[in-house]
């Protein structure tokens, strides 16, 4: 992980390896202290970033090559913005059709498909763009 950190922003570049999840936890621990985030907010952001990044690692790269994923956290005062950029195959987050039936009974409840639902439920806004062959996901959470 490469980190470029200033007062209100933190840019991290991670490899497409699940072991980087541990480094994201550490970064958010540091940001929570610096930006005065509650434990609840920190865990919510951690959950969202884990879901986004693990989806990219599992589904975005059909090849076996190394890829880099960029994460940018920005403290805008009344909200936190998280921008995630990857060079994987196109995945328009806004068109993802993985809404689970959260009212289904145990027998009917499908296993999986919860990650995107959690992201949409926790964050206040989710925006997606495809720029220069890259997926750019911008998430915000009001504070």
């Amino acid at each position, binding site marked *: 992980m490469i980190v470029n950190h200033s007062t209100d922003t933190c840019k991290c570049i991670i490899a497409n390896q699940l*072991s980087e999840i541990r480094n994201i936890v550490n970064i958010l621990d540091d940001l929570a202290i610096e930006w005065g985030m509650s434990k609840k907010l920190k865990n919510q952001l951690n959950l969202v970033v884990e879901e986004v990044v*693990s989806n990219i690692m599992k589904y975005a790269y059909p090849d076996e090559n190394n890829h880099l994923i960029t994460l940018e956290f920005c403290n805008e005062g009344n909200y936190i913005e998280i921008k995630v950029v990857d060079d994987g195959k196109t995945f328009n987050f806004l068109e993802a059709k993985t809404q689970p039936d*959260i009212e289904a009974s145990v027998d009917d409840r499908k296993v999986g498909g919860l990650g995107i639902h959690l992201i949409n439920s926790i964050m206040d806004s989710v925006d997606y763009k495809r720029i220069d062959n890259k997926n750019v996901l911008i998430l915000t959470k009001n504070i």
Partner: protein
Amino acid sequence: MEITTKKHESCTIIEIKGRLNTTNFAELESEFNKLIDAGKRSLLVDCSALDYVSSSGLRVFLVALKALKKLNGKFVLCNLQEGILEVFEVSGFITIFEVYVTKEEALGVF
């Protein structure tokens, strides 16, 4: 994450400590499978020391619940921290799982 399994007179108690996420969910999945394969049909998961769960962990809970339901068993959770409870509510898990505030209450259902 640490998983501790304890025998109780009416069920098996599984204590999970730390963070359950996409890097370690398979450890818990294998523990549940091992217990079910060994004939255990009453599992109580004590989440008092579980600090964090992501969708990979939720999936493991759901798979275990489905498996035990088919076998007429019981899969019960207790002591969920506020953040975990929120994830259970958002995902609708709160309505399909038996969740108790205290371990004593949960032990009462076996």
